[in-house]
């Protein structure tokens, strides 16, 4: 991380307000995976007319760009432990595979860190609480495992 972090007690509530705004405006959960899903769905059916979920995802993209422009560059170089510990030739295939698990798993679970973790947990949905506990637990275990192995 090259740039100073916004205080958590500002950044967190900001994210929470986004969840509230989506519920008020679209009567739905804020879920980033829904945006990917919408794009895949529409493109498959040869359409580029996207609903709000895709536009929210485009907004997230621009948010990253606005931040990088304001901060004078991206927030990091290389790719974390992967480019530090592994041969660079391996990193891209590993990232494609990880992305595949992220996309397939999030769709199966009906949400990712935002849909289940943030929006579902906020309304104490039992399904989202189970999903959130599972993916946090799994990701924590994987990080301890890779630290022990590499």
């Amino acid at each position, binding site marked *: *991380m090259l740039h100073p972090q916004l205080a*958590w007690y500002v*950044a*967190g509530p900001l*994210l*929470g307000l986004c969840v*509230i*705004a*989506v519920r008020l*405006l679209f009567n739905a959960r*804020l879920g*980033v995976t829904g945006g*990917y*899903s*919408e794009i895949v*769905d529409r493109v498959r*059916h040869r359409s580029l007319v996207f609903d709000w*979920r895709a536009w*929210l*995802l*485009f907004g*997230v*993209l*621009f948010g*990253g*760009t606005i*931040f990088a422009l304001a901060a004078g560059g*991206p*927030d*990091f170089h*290389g790719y*974390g*432990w992967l*480019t530090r510990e592994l041969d660079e030739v391996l990193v891209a295939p590993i990232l494609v*595979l*990880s*992305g*595949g698990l*992220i*996309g397939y*798993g*999030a*769709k*199966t*679970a*009906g*949400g990712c*860190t935002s*849909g289940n*973790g943030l*929006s579902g947990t906020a309304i104490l*949905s*039992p399904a989202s609480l*189970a*999903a959130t506990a*599972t*993916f946090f637990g*799994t*990701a924590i275990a*994987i990080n301890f495992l890779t630290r022990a192995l590499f």
Partner: protein
Amino acid sequence: MRPRLPALAIGVVFGVALSWSGMTSPDVIRGALLFEDSYLFLFFGSAVATASIGLLLLRRAGRVTWTPQRIARRHVTGSLIFGVGWGVADACPGPIMTQIGQGIAWGVPLLAGVLLGVYAFVRRSEETEPARDPAPALARGSSVPGSA
């Protein structure tokens, strides 16, 4: 109401918040998941608390409603698969998009993977549940209630 602009605006706020909080960086995520740094948990907790309080107040005022979902097997199996990918790449779908937005080249194979994963899921659900995809009209808005 045309939903594009408000959705885009909310997305921008979301993306800036994810970037500014360092969530775009895999080292920040890894540091949190190895319990070396408490920022992510405080950030995440305060986001959930804010959303929770706001939504409960709005529901009390009769402005919004929702139905909680019961736990099914897929919520756990899907999250196990998701958690492995998240744990290796130390990035989830929102931060993957902000990586792309920040111009981080390593985000491209990740993004490609996510799109392939979503595509694989959609294809597989169509094969196992052909009855649920009878017409293009339904497929176009194929968001099952409560799904991502």
